[in-house]
């Protein structure tokens, strides 16, 4: 699958994602500069982590209005796959391609630590390497990852099954202590209603090889390029 990684001024996880997609998963992968207006035929678009535009105004808000985002929006609205990791997730929220917003972390600290995530959906192509209820270990590295939306919108998100990952403890239980950034309902990752746009705060690209001591994240990037085509939900949806 042809993969494109959008590079913004301040992106710093672009090469990590490139490495996993290109060298580990052996996909045709290219960088897309934020000032371009074409996705060059890429089927998977990744908005990588980093500090685009120095996190000015609100994290992801400046990148959300960069030239390439119009093409990303069209791609997403046509059912194309878009994955936002960390700062990329913040951009998807700022563009409105995913619902919700981010606040500063509950304790105002930048958090760079491994967390545990529970997989809430396994009927999405993204999660085709996992089973529902699986507990993954992945690193987070952010200051604004405290997910929020109105109570009504959160209920709607739950009802539609758009919560894909939640912060849990190592045993898979939702505990306040495991929700380090204070996100509402321990939300770590959400998808859009169509399932073709996914955003999450943790970094799967940083834990995708054995030599890094953890490859829990490889499954997500493998899912991102699985099956080809543009459909977000698996044909044989199990639930």
């Amino acid at each position: 699958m042809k993969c494109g990684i959008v590079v913004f001024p301040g992106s710093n996880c672009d090469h990590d994602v490139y490495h996993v997609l290109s060298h580990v998963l052996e996909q045709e992968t290219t960088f897309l500069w934020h000032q371009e207006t074409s996705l060059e035929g890429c089927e998977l678009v990744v908005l990588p982590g980093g500090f685009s535009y120095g996190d000015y105004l609100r994290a992801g808000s400046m990148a959300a209005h960069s030239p390439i985002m119009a093409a990303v929006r069209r791609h997403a609205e046509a059912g194309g796959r878009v994955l936002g990791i960390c700062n990329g997730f913040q951009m998807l929220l700022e563009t409105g391609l995913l619902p919700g917003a981010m606040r500063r972390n509950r304790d105002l600290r930048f958090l760079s630590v491994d967390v545990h995530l529970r997989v809430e959906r396994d009927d999405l192509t993204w999660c085709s390497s996992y089973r529902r209820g699986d507990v993954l270990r992945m690193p987070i590295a952010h200051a604004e990852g405290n997910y929020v939306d109105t109570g009504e919108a959160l209920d709607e998100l739950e009802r539609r099954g758009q919560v894909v990952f939640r912060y849990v403890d190592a045993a898979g239980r939702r505990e306040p202590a495991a929700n380090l950034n204070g996100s509402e309902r321990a939300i770590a990752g959400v998808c859009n209603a169509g399932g073709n746009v996914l955003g999450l705060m943790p970094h799967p690209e940083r834990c995708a090889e054995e030599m890094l001591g953890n490859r829990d994240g490889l499954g997500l990037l493998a899912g991102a390029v699985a099956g080809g085509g543009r459909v977000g939900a698996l044909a044989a949806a199990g639930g």
Partner: protein
Amino acid sequence: MTSQTSRHAEGPEGRFVARVLVYPRAEVLDPQGRAIEDALGRIGFDGVRRIRAGKSFEVALEAADEEQASEAVDRMCRQLLANPIVEDYTVEWVSE
């Protein structure tokens, strides 16, 4: 979301200056404001009931008339300066 527009200050024709104030919405936890509140208490300010930490922007713009200036600033707020999910904004007009 709130948008209070006071009477535009008199300025050179077609030129306006808006001061946009953006605050976390009342029902949204404001960790920054909370931390400042705690710090004020620690250094002896007992009477502080609440701190909300926000941002302000000064927008100098040209527009055909007051109505257009006001409408433009309102759109700037909704599209970029504030995130309506977590922030409220108010607009004041000032003299250049």
